[in-house]
């Protein structure tokens, strides 16, 4: 079984921390157990600071202001939504760098209800000047993206997607800010963000049964958007479906459409979470089904939209 992305987070912190004395990890009582190797190795650079996310965020910005590279980590809604003004002002308005790594993408915590969901993070973070948004959905991706970005001069937010999409990447295949080409086809362009690559891969099989082939582009960097491969594929297929675990409003699909809407005869469909609270319980797959993020929905979109 492949390593979980959360374990990779802990392993990457340890590996980077060993060679970079400027790396500081601050958590809000989440992942404290798996980060113990880091805590033991670097007790002065590890803080389980308390359950007070806005202050944790401001504190991280203050650390950044003296030249350190903080990593701030807890569950996504508390890190992004609750602490949004701190992200906005203390990091971005101050023009400070830093790393925010959230766990619990979208409705990964499917049994915990809406308080622990976060599917508006792209929309919020896109409004912050200079912010970068990554959505790694496998261990190798997180490691590669973190190594490439953690000393960037901007705020970098990594949404750890707990559901592995099942595609193995080599580290060299993952380049921050670049879409990854997964499959070549001619009938439709499937643009899959994070864990939804799995849905796209399954949809590809269903489309093959109908003698349709798909270009599949995988997005692990939501911001900055790598639009050129999407545009090139759209010019070829004239049919684009974007799959993402984000509310339709303000999601990656909005960004794609803004860039390619002038392509003649383009058909575009956004497969995203409707603009409602996902109040259902059940497994991750149950919630995907409840909001229409399924391979069958992709096929329907391709055939009818």
């Amino acid at each position, binding site marked *: 079984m492949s390593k979980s992305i959360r374990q990779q987070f802990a392993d990457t912190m340890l590996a980077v921390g060993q060679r970079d004395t400027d790396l500081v990890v601050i958590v809000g009582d989440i992942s404290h157990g798996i980060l113990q190797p880091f805590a033991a190795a670097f007790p002065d650079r590890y803080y389980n600071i308390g359950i007070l996310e806005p202050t944790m965020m*401001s*504190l991280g910005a*203050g650390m950044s*202001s003296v030249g350190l590279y*903080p990593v701030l980590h807890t569950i996504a809604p508390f890190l992004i939504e609750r602490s949004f003004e701190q992200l906005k002002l203390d990091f971005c308005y101050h023009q400070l760098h830093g790393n925010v790594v959230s766990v619990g993408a979208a409705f990964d915590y499917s049994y915990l209800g809406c308080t622990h969901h976060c599917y508006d993070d792209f929309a919020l973070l896109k409004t912050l000047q200079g912010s970068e948004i990554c959505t790694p959905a496998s261990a190798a991706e997180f490691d590669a993206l973190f190594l490439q970005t953690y000393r960037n001069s901007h705020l970098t937010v990594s949404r750890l997607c707990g559901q592995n999409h099942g595609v193995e990447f080599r580290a060299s295949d993952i380049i921050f800010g670049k879409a990854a080409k997964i499959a070549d086809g001619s009938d439709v362009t499937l643009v899959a963000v994070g864990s939804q690559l799995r849905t796209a891969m399954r949809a590809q099989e269903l489309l093959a049964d109908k003698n349709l082939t798909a270009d599949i582009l995988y997005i692990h960097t939501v911001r900055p958007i790598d639009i050129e491969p999407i545009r090139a594929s759209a010019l070829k297929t004239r049919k684009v479906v974007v799959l993402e675990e984000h509310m339709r409003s303000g999601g990656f699909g909005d960004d794609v459409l803004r860039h390619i809407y002038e392509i003649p005869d383009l058909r575009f469909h956004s497969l995203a979470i409707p603009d409602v609270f996902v109040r259902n319980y059940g497994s991750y797959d149950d919630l995907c089904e409840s909001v229409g993020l399924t391979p069958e929905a992709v096929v329907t979109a391709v055939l009818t939209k």
Partner: protein
Amino acid sequence: MTMLQRDHVPNKDLRRQIVDMCVSGQNGHIPSAFSILDIIIVLYRDVLKFDAKDPLWDERDYFILSKGHGCLALYVNLHRHHFITDNDVRLFCKKGGILGEHPDRTKVPGVEASTGSLGHGLSFALGIHLGLRIQNKRNRIFVLVGDGECHEGTVWEAANIARNRKLGNLCVIVDWNQSAMQLMPFDDMPAKWAAFGWNVQVVDGHNEKEIQAAIANVAFVNDGIPHVIVAKTIKGFGIPMIEGHGKWHHRIPDANEHKQLMEALA
């Protein structure tokens, strides 16, 4: 602490400069600036280590004005100590200027944090303190917060962390001008900080000697108990007609009022 001194108004020159800047820029919070002016004067004149030619000097003390709307009091001190120029002052709140109604760290030399939204400065300062500790540095850190600002929960989140992490190079000064009194009073501000485990002193925030003595009492031990100086102040102190929490909070003097204020500060 002695009773608040009301018979002697210190630092009339900088009070006049604040009024003039407010009139020139047609913006500013005069009473909030007057409330904290004497504290900031003492800090820059007698306490803080800095180099105006090198505002990011490694060995400087840090000062964060968390109640950013009082920034006119900071600006006149930054001007007096040559961080900013006559021209910067002239362009307060004007096109092309670097000084706005809240301080911007990316524009103004000597400003450590861009404040304005209340409840950020102390938490930001904790990160500076912890960061400097990691780097084996021992710079002192001063943060000025308002008593109204202490309604913000993040102030107390930060107070908890500072004590828990023994951030003893930190000195918070509370501008206890009773802004909170009009909506949700703190009946005993010193007790609140004491309850969080801080060392607490109470001073007359318009008495320079008391402010100096209180700061001199602070041990500044890197792994020690954080300190708070609760400064009893009067919003608008120096000109009775603008004192208190009425219309002058954000009022720009008209020509006649400008004349009256300057006469009062003669």
